[in-house]
Structure formats: structure tokens, C-alpha cells
């Protein structure tokens, strides 16, 4: 720990802003990168919703610009591309960089009292690997025959050359591989940093929950992202070098002899932990924020940490519930059903503790607090609907319908997104030394949460009524035509949701450059990041601080000067 050097601040523009190894700069790079991709993915979602509500009608405003060949109409191939890339972008290029890249990079060293990540160069590499992945993904949108159309899950043999011979799918696999490499680099860095660089006195039990969440996510990243890496490599080999890992003998007319189901196992061995990769930091963040803004210690801190660790462990053994209809044997099916049900125990512990943290608190309803409470609500909806999908009997009907779409959007998308927004609103004053507008923030929250819940609850209804997902046009089948009205409602709500994000964009940009200068600790919390000066100086801490209290000592009667919070570097009375 004494080995944390301080190098002189680079003066070269490239070294300072582009290829910087400073975790704060990298966090901001991830932030901008993620926000831009979030915007792109969001626009794609809007186009998808437009098509679903008005099948075959030209997309207004941007349609004729983006799709001149069809006069602005989305053709089914473009539609498939859109929902595939929407999924990929949102997960790998939107939420991952924001949640893990930006918030992780920003908060870990500051919260544990370190001068930087333990491997600053690896950190830089991690961002640029992801940037490269994003660039490859972006390029894949413009190759002949278009980008991938095989869904974000990219199941073979649809994703092998059996179906498409264009290079879009290959580039997609390369992009996912690169992003995976970035995640592994980040994961190793975060894990090591948390283990090695905690300030004196920052015991594991004083670690803020945010750091716990990101730490556990990093563990999952390092363990399971290699699996998707291998799946992508094999897919690339199948596509480029003519191997047949995932192409069965029968459609090779006897040659080869791979198995497309093998890919599904590989994908979901990664894919289910990926859900927790996105949700664990969210849980950590809101575990902290609920405590911070209730002015009350995090209820059952150890139980929360224990629950998150349990989820981390269990997440590896439940992946089979994604594959109940692929023909798993009865034994496997029942095992996975049971294990999936068991994972709800830690989730219930977390819910209980969050709600108990709020109970009899002194709630400051700031924007980050609203978003944190929003996470409880939307994750509650999403988590409970998971029971339907964990139960084979109901999953058989609901699998690959809009019910699933509603479910995973509420859990891994909306919850993670809300926690990300909470995090951005929360750390913005420290990051950019300016305050975000609270009124706009609250407007953003209410205009996000209401349409969002409307959209995805309507999707539950659609799925329950039997509407399969990934359909270009639900008016094509008689059976689905009577559900089209639900699509219209959902699209109206989705547009409102999209419009609400403009409030955020406006607020973010205005506050970034023209916002009110922030004080050192506007939220009055005691974690190390808030007890340092604003803006954060180069190499964070001139002196590595020493920690004496936990992160959540709010309203402790032993706090010296009548405040309801205490810095972690201060000592309590007596």
C-alpha cells in the first residue's frame, strides 16, 4: 500500500485525456462512451417500438435518412438487426461500461482510499478494448448484408454461415469477444485493487456496498466472461475457418458433427451470470444510497453482503432455466428449476433489508434516492415475474414470449439502468464538480418510471396472451392480430419513456458545463470519496487516509458535533 506512487500529472493532451491511465479519466471515458451507446441503443428501441405499433410504415424523421432503400420502412432483416444490436449494445456497450466501467472505476479507488487502480495501464487497455469492440460493432452495421440478425444470443445455426454469409455476424462475435476481453481486464483490475489497495482500517466489513457489488461482479466477470469468449471464438471459427463446432452432421449432410445446443450451454453459462454482473453493482449502489438518503445505517449490512455473495455463487448453477424448452432431460429441468427457486432466498433477504433500511428513516427524497427506490419497485416486479419463468410448467408457455422480454427488461435492464442513473446523479457533483438540477432530475425519474413500468407490464400481458417475441409484424398471424392494440399502448408509453431521457440529456449536458459549482460533500455522507476535496486532485489522496468508522454510521448518537453523519476517517465519541 505504501507502494502507491505519485507520478507527475501528464501534460500531453493524449496522455491526459485519451490514453490516460488515471482511473478518474477512464471513468469519464467509460461514462461518455456508455451514454452515447445507450442513446444509440435507445433510438434502436424506439424504432423497434415504432415498427411493432405501425408495421410496415416508414419510421418518422430518421427513417428515410437511415433506410433510403426502403423509403424509411424497416424491412424484417433490418428489424432483426435492430433488436439484435439493441440487446448487444444495451448490455455490452451501454450498461456494462456505465455500471462497471464508469461507476466502478470512479468509486472503487475513491471509496477504498486508493490513489488509483492497481494496474492503471490494464485499466486504460480495458477501456480501449471496449472502444475497439464498440467500433467493430458499429462497423458491422454497415457491411454488405447488414449486421447480425441472429438475436443478441446469437444461437447457431442461425448465427453460423448456414444462415448468413455476410460478415456482420462475424464482426459481432469479434466485438463481443473484445468487450469480453475488456470486462476480464477490468474484473482482474477491480478484484486486485479491492483486495490489495484498501486504506488502513478499511476492513472488508467497512467496505461500502457499492464496492462489494462491483467486487463480486468482477469475480463473475473473470470467471464467466471467458466462457462467452470461447463460445465466440468457436463461432468465429465455424464462420471463418469452416469448423463445425456448432453445426450438426445432419445439416452438413454427414460431414462435421457439432451441436448447436453446445453453444446454448456455453452462452448461458456466461449469460445467466451476466444478468448478475449487471445487477450486483446495482444492488450494491442502492444498498449504499438507500442508507445514505434514509440517514440510517444499511440494515443488515452483513446479511446484504452475504446475500450478494450467495447470489454470486448460485448464479453459476441456474443457467439451465434459459433452456427449459430446448429438450433438457426431466432430471436436469427439475434440478435447474429448484436451483432457480433457491436463488430467490438471497433476493428476499436483500429486499427485506432494503425495505427495513427505509423503515423509520429520515428520507431525503433526492433524485438518486428516488432512483434507488425505483430499483426496489422495478426489481420487485421483475424478480417476482421470474417465478413464472423458473417454473417449468408456466415457462413452457411463456418462454420466448413478450413475458420474458418484460421480465428481463425490468430486472437486468431497468433495475441496472435505474441504479446507473442513481449513481450518475449521486457522483456527478464529485466527478464534474458541478451539481445536477434536482427538479429536472425528479422530472426525469417520474417520467421514466411510469412509462417504463407501463411498457414492461404491458409486455407481461402480451406474453401471457401468447405473443412471441422477435416478431417483425404481429398482424401477420390471425392469432396475434387481436393483441396488436397492446403493442400500440406499449409504443406510446415507450415513446414517452424515450422523450423523458431527453430531460436527462439536457440536464446532464447543462449541468456538466453550466451547472452550479458543487460543494465538497453535498449529500452529507461519510465515505472516503465525499470527504476529499472537489474536484478530486491528481492521485486522489496526498496522504492515504486511515479509516475508523463504517460507511453507514448515520444518525449514530455517538457522532461528535450533532451532525447525523460522520466521515469514515473520523472517530466516534467514546
Amino acid at each position, binding site marked *: 500500500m505504501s507502494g502507491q506512487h505519485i507520478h507527475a500529472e501528464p501534460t500531453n493532451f493524449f496522455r491526459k485525456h485519451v490514453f490516460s491511465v488515471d482511473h478518474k479519466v477512464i471513468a469519464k471515458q467509460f461514462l461518455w462512451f456508455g451514454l452515447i451507446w445507450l442513446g444509440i441503443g435507445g433510438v434502436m428501441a424506439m424504432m423497434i417500438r415504432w415498427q411493432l405499433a405501425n408495421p*410496415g410504415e416508414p419510421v418518422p424523421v430518421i427513417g428515410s435518412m437511415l433506410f433510403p*432503400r*426502403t*423509403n424509411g*420502412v424497416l*424491412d*424484417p*432483416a433490418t428489424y432483426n438487426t435492430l433488436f439484435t444490436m439493441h440487446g448487444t449494445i444495451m448490455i455490452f456497450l451501454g450498461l456494462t461500461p456505465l455500471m462497471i466501467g464508469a461507476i466502478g472505476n470512479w468509486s472503487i479507488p475513491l471509496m477504498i482510499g486508493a490513489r488509483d487502480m492497481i494496474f492503471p495501464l490494464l485499466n486504460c487497455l480495458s477501456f480501449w478494448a471496449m472502444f475497439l469492440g464498440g467500433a467493430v460493432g458499429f462497423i458491422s452495421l454497415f457491411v*454488405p*448484408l*447488414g449486421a447480425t440478425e441472429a438475436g443478441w444470443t446469437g444461437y447457431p445455426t442461425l448465427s*453460423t*454461415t*448456414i*444462415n*448468413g*454469409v*455476410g460478415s456482420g455476424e462475424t464482426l459481432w462475435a469479434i466485438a463481443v469477444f473484445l468487450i469480453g*476481453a475488456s470486462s*476480464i*481486464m477490468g474484473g*482482474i483490475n477491480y478484484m486486485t485493487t479491492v483486495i490489495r489497495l484498501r486504506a488502513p482500517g478499511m476492513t472488508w466489513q467497512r467496505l461500502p456496498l457499492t464496492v462489494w457489488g462491483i467486487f463480486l461482479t468482477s469475480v463473475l466477470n*473473470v*470467471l464467466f466472461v*471467458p*466462457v462467452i*469468449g*470461447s463460445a465466440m*471464438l468457436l463461432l468465429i471459427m*465455424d*464462420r*471463418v475457418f*469452416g469448423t*463445425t463446432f456448432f*453445426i*450438426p*452432421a*445432419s*445439416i*452438413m*449432410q*454427414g*460431414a*462435421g*458433427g457439432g*451441436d448447436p*445446443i*453446445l453453444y446454448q*450451454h*456455453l452462452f448461458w*453459462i456466461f449469460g445467466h451470470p451476466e444478468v448478475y454482473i449487471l445487477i450486483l453493482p446495482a444492488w450494491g449502489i442502492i444498498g449504499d444510497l438507500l442508507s445514505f438518503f434514509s440517514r440510517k445505517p444499511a440494515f443488515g449490512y452483513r446479511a446484504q453482503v452475504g446475500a450478494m455473495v450467495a447470489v454470486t455463487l448460485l448464479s453459476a448453477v441456474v443457467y439451465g432455466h434459459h433452456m427449459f424448452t430446448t*429438450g433438457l*432431460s426431466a432430471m*436436469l429441468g427439475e434440478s435447474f428449476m429448484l436451483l432457480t427457486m433457491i436463488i430467490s432466498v438471497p433476493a428476499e433477504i436483500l429486499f427485506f433489508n432494503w425495505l427495513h433500511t427505509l423503515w423509520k428513516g429520515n428520507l431525503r427524497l433526492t433524485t438518486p434516492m428516488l432512483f434507488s427506490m425505483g430499483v426496489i419497485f422495478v426489481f420487485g416486479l421483475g424478480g417476482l415475474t421470474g417465478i413464472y419463468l423458473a417454473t417449468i410448467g408456466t415457462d413452457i408457455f411463456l418462454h420466448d414470449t413478450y413475458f420474458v422480454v418484460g421480465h428481463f427488461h425490468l430486472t437486468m435492464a431497468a433495475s441496472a439502468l435505474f441504479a446507473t442513473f442513481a449513481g450518475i446523479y449521486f457522483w456527478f457533483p464529485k466527478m464534474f464538480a458541478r451539481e445536477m438540477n434536482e427538479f429536472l432530475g425528479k422530472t426525469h425519474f417520474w417520467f421514466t418510471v411510469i412509462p417504463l413500468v407501463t411498457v414492461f407490464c404491458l409486455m407481461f400481458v402480451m406474453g401471457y396472451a401468447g405473443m412471441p417475441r422477435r416478431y*417483425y*409484424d404481429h398482424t401477420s398471424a390471425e392469432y396475434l392480430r387481436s393483441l396488436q392494440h397492446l403493442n400500440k399502448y406499449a409504443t406510446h408509453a415507450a415513446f414517452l419513456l424515450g422523450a423523458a431521457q431527453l430531460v436527462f440529456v439536457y440536464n446532464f449536458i447543462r449541468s456538466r458545463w453550466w451547472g452550479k459549482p458543487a460543494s465538497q460533500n453535498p449529500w452529507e455522507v461519510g465515505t472516503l470519496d465525499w470527504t476529499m476535496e472537489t474536484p478530486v486532485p491528481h492521485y486522489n489522496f496526498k496522504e492515504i487516509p486511515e479509516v475508523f468508522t463504517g460507511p453507514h454510521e448515520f444518525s449514530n448518537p455517538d457522532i461528535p458535533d450533532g451532525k447525523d453523519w460522520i466521515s469514515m476517517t473520523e472517530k466516534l465519541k467514546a
Partner: protein
Amino acid sequence: MRSPFTQLVCLATVAIGTLSSFKALNFFGSDPRADEDHSQMIAEELPHARPPRGVPLTITEGTWLRAPGEEWIIQQNELARKQGLEPRFTEDPSAADGEGAWIDSTGFIQKRYDEEEDFWAYWQWVGPAQLTRGRRDFVQFCSSCHGLDGDGYGRSGQWLRPSPRDFRQTNFKFTKVLANLPTDDALKRLIKRGLDGTPMLPWDLSDEQITDIVQYIKSLSPEGMGWRDPFTGIGSIVEAGENPWAGRENFAIKHGEKVYHGVAQCMLCHPGYVNPRDLPGLLDQPEDTVYRENLYLPVLKDSEYEVLGEKVKILPPDFTFHTIRSGQTPQDLYETIASGIKGTAMPAWKGSLSEEDLWALAYYVQDLVEEYKDKPAERRGLMERLREGL
């Protein structure tokens, strides 16, 4: 074990190893065709033994394709004028290196002389840019059934009957034209409509995309065949004129039954739908005439279509059972009956039967479909009535 790369490799190995053992334990079920002798099959070098890789997507050279003649061009222009549109073709004497050509949005049409054959024919120039666009759309949308080379033997096209069109055979069943080859508009209509009861779906593609695909499909004609054959005739869709039975549909159905079993003798190939006791009356034959065995079943017919070099046979539809491919309205059925189905035993009836008979047939067939198809009780009643006479 320190570097992420080593970790990645190790973990992937473990994962794949585990799953391979799953595979070995037959967790995923068995392969239906795995029992066949693989080495034998590879030795035969089946057309798609390997997934396609490195498929060319760009066409660098344009091509001349046969086009309908000046008569058609003038007709198209008049049609557009009637609809209040700009004429479709403009004559530009300076186009095509000053040789003069008719120009429209798809390129230009020129009358050209074949010295060797001493023959003048109309040819359309299709440029490489359009062919490339068409090629790409074709690969993306059509190749899974029609094959990457348009040989009608894509992966999803195998084992499929009726088999997907092999564009190198330049024969099209449901284009509803009298000549060998259809006009672009006829092909476009077919692609947009699809064929009922087959994987040839109604394609939700833009007009421009379909135009490009059509040009590309035409360019798949081998040398001296189809659109590369100067002697080929290109025709427009058979126009259904005035419906002589409008308002008298019931009479049309009755008359259609007479035509079907009488003068047209459709039951030579299709099933008969009247009691054999009534047939002699309709056909003006002695009472004791014996008709073909299985009069209530269709007869398998030869066709000109080939799959892997072998001619396939085609079963004429039983209208009370099979799905009619190209439309079930009297209008559609009229067009199909009048123009025949290319490459099959179904001849063109236009000119051989009066318009009234043709429309009556269309109404009768439509009635058969409506009354009995997918209606088990009704169909059972019909079959019982028919068998009484046997």
C-alpha cells in the same frame, strides 16, 4: 495462471470438456441422420457438404438480358399516361453510346442485332451496381431455399416438395403469363404475393429491393437459355377481362361443374367431383362407360422441373384438400387456369375455352375450396355421395 489469457484458455477448456462429456452421455438427444454412412456421403461430394464461406457478394460486370419488345414499351407508357403518371420509358437516341435506347428506372432497353443468327431482339442492360444490390438481397433473403447460386437447392430447399425454383432452369410455375418468360412486373407480383402453402412467403421487401432481386434472378439464366436466349418470348400477365357471371355466381358454379367434367375434362388429371353415374351425361357417353380407376384422386404427372438432375413429378391438387398456391379468388383462379402452369401438365386454357367457361371454372374451383377444404364433415359428406355411385 496469472495472465487473463491463460485463465481464459483454461476455463474455456474446462467448459468445453464438461459439455463434450455431456454430449458423450447423449444429454442432448441423438442425431437423426447420424447413423448414415458419413464417409460415403462425403465421398459423393454433395452440393452443400460444407457451409458456404467466402461467397462473392459483388458483381463487377453488367449484363444484357432479354426484354419485352417495343409494343410492350408503348403499352406501358400508355398505361402510365392513363393513370396520370409520367410515361415509364423515354426514348433516348443518344443513350447506349449513341445507339438509341428506351430508358426507365431499371435501366435501358435496346433493340440489338445478332449477326450470327440474323436476328433482332430487344435487350435490357442491367448494370453491375444493380446486380450487386440484387445479389446481396438474394443471398440474404432467398438463398436459404434457392441456394447461393440460385440452383434451387439451398439448405432449406432440400427435401422440399414442391422444390424451390432452380433459376438456371428459367421456368416459372405461377407467373400467369402465356409466353415462356414473365415480365419483371409478373415476377415482382409473385414475390410480393408469395405462394400459399409453401415456404415462398409474401415478401415484405420494398419495391426497389424486389426490382433488384428480379434483375439478379434473371441474370442467373445460363447462356442461351431464359433471359439470355434471343428467341425467348416474354409475356405479360393474362388479363382477366370483364366477369361475365357477375351477380350470377350460383349459375357460374353450376356451369363450371359441367365444364370441369365435360368439355375440359379436368378429371383426367385432377379428381372428379361428381358421381360417376352423372359423368356419362356430362360427357355425352354411353351409360356403362367405365372411367379411370381412382377417379376421386389426382394423377401424378411429369413435370419439366429437375432436382439434382432428376425430373420431379407433380401431383395436381385436389381442390377439396390441397392448398391452392396462387390465390383463391375467382380472379386469381381465372388467371391461373387461363395461363396454365409453366413446366407442368397444366395447359393454358385461354382461347381454347370461352371466357364464360373459364370464369365458370374459376368459380367452380373456388366453390370446391370454400365448401370442403378444412371442413371434415362436409368433405366426408361429399366423398360418401361420390362413392355411392361406385
